[in-house]
C-alpha cells in the first residue's frame, strides 16, 4: 500500500526527512512515533501529496506520486482519508454533521441517493448515528473528531492517515477514537497513525515505526512507544 524509497525532504535549510525507506502492506495498522519535529507530519503529507519529496520515490496504492499530475491529485485524495489533530478547523461550522460528512461526496459529484445511503452508514460506524442533524458547536471534541473521521471514511478509501488524531482529546476519548481506527482497520482499510501518545501505542501493540530527526530509528511489529531499558 505504501512504499517510500530513499525519501529525503528538505524545507529550506531544515532536513525534515532523511533517506526514509518504508514498506507498509495493505491492511496493516501502523503507529508512526517520535518527538515533535521528527518528521511524522511531513511523511504523512508526502503520502497524500500535499508535498513532494526532495529526493526519493513515494508510492501509494500502486501509484508513484512523483509522477502524479496535479490534476490527478483529487483522485488520489478520494482514496486516502486524512484525519488531523485540529479537527476544530476541519469542520464547516455552518453545516450539520450530515452535511459535513456529505461534503466529501458532494465534491466528487456523488448522487443524492448515494449520499443518503453512505452518510448514515458511516455515521453509524463512528457512533454518531443520532447526531446527523447536530451542528459542530453542539458536539464534544471527541464527537467532532468522529465527524472528521466519518468524512475521511465516507469515500471508502483503502488508506487512512491520521496525524495526532487524539492530540486534543482526553485519554478516555483518545482511546475510543483509537479503538475506532482499529475497527476501521479490521474492515480492511490500511491505517497509519502518527502520534506521540505513549499510552495509546503501548495499549494497542501494533507495528511501530519510530522517527528521530527525520530518520527511521526503529521499525518493529507489536512494538511499544519506546524501547524498554
Amino acid at each position: 500500500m505504501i512504499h517510500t524509497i530513499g525519501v529525503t525532504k528538505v524545507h529550506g535549510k531544515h532536513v525534515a526527512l532523511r533517506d526514509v525507506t518504508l514498506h507498509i502492506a495493505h491492511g496493516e495498522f501502523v503507529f508512526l512515533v517520535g518527538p515533535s519535529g521528527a518528521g511524522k507530519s511531513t511523511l504523512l503529507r508526502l503520502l497524500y501529496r500535499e508535498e513532494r519529496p526532495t529526493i526519493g520515490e513515494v508510492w501509494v496504492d500502486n501509484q508513484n506520486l512523483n509522477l502524479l499530475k496535479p490534476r490527478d491529485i483529487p483522485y488520489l485524495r478520494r482514496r486516502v482519508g486524512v484525519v488531523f489533530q485540529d479537527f476544530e478547523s476541519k469542520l464547516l461550522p455552518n453545516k450539520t454533521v450530515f452535511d459535513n460528512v456529505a461534503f466529501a461526496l458532494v465534491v466528487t459529484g456523488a448522487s443524492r441517493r448515494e449520499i443518503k445511503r453512505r452518510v448514515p452508514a458511516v455515521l453509524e460506524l463512528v457512533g454518531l448515528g443520532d447526531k446527523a442533524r447536530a451542528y459542530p458547536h453542539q458536539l464534544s471534541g471527541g464527537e467532532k473528531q468522529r465527524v472528521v473521521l466519518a468524512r475521511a471514511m465516507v469515500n471508502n478509501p483503502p488508506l487512512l492517515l491520521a496525524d495526532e488524531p487524539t492530540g486534543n482529546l482526553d485519554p478516555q476519548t483518545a482511546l475510543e477514537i483509537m479503538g475506532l481506527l482499529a475497527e476501521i482497520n479490521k474492515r480492511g482499510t490500511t491505517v497509519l497513525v502518527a502520534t506521540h501518545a505513549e499510552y495509546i501505542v503501548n495499549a494497542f501493540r501494533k507495528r511501530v515505526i519510530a522517527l528521530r530527526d527525520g530518520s527511521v530509528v526503529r521499525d518493529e511489529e507489536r512494538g511499544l512507544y519506546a524501547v524498554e531499558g
Partner: protein
Amino acid sequence: MRARTIGYLFTEALDGIRKNGVMSFASVSTVALTLFVLAVFAVIALNVQHMTRILESQVQVVAYLKADFDRARRDDIVRTARFLDGVADVQYVTKEEALARLRKQFGEQADLLDAVAENNPLVDSLEVRLESPAVADGVVAKLRAIEGVDKVLYRRDTVKRLQSVASALRALGTVLAGLLAFATVLIVSNTIRISVFARRREIGIMKLVGATDWFIRWPFLMEGAMLGLGGALLAAVAISAGYVWVVEKVNLILPFIPVIPASPFLLDISKVLLLSGAFLGAAGSLLSLRRHLRV
C-alpha cells in the same frame, strides 16, 4: 455535470455574494457604471452612424431655386440639370411637396407648421443624385451657373462631418471601454480574492477530500459572472430608461433628427451589455483565482 452539482455550485456562488455584501455591492456598482458609460457611447455612436447612413441615402446635392422662379420653365431646368456630366437623376420638388415632407418629419408637432403654411417660406428645388461623389464639385459649380438657381447645397459635407464625428466617437469609446473594462476586471477580481479568503477553510477541506480544481473554482467563477451580470442589468435598465426619455425629447423638440427607434435597438444593446457583464465578471474572477487560489 449533474443537475445536483450545478445546484450546489450556484448556491455556493450566491452564498459568497451574500457573505461579502459590501464588496459585492461595490463590484456591481462599478460594473454598472462601466457598462453604462460604454452603452452611452455605443448608443451615441450608433445613432450618428444611423444618421450618416440616412443622409447618404438621401439626395446628395440640392439646388434651391429662386423664389420667383417661373414654373413654366420647370421641364427646361430639369433637362438642363439632367444633362450635366455626372448627374444620375434629377427630381423637381415643389415648395408644397417640401412643406408636406417637413410636416411628415415633424410628425405630431406638425401643427407648428400651420403658422407658416399660409405663406409657405420654402422654395422649389432640384434634388440631384450624382453618379459618384467624385464629380460633386463640378456638378455643384455647373448647377450654380444655371439661371434660376439660387443656392446649391452639397450634403456630402454634412455626411463627411458626421462620419468623422462617428469615427472619433468610436475611437474615444474604444479607449474608454478598454480602461473601464480593465477597472471592472480589477474590482471584480479583488472581490473574488476576498471571497476566496473568506472561504479558505472550506477550500482547504475541499482539496483534502478530493474536489477537482474546477469544482473549487466554479462557484467563484459564477460569483464573478453574477456580479458582472448584476451590474450589466442595472446598466441596461438605466440606458433603456435614459434612451426612451431622450428619444421622446428629441422627437418632440428636433423631430427632423433621425434617431434609432427604441425597439428592438435597446433589446440588442441590453443583450450585449449582459453578455459583456458576465464575461468581464468571469474574467475578473479567473484573474483572481489564478493568483490567489493555488489549487
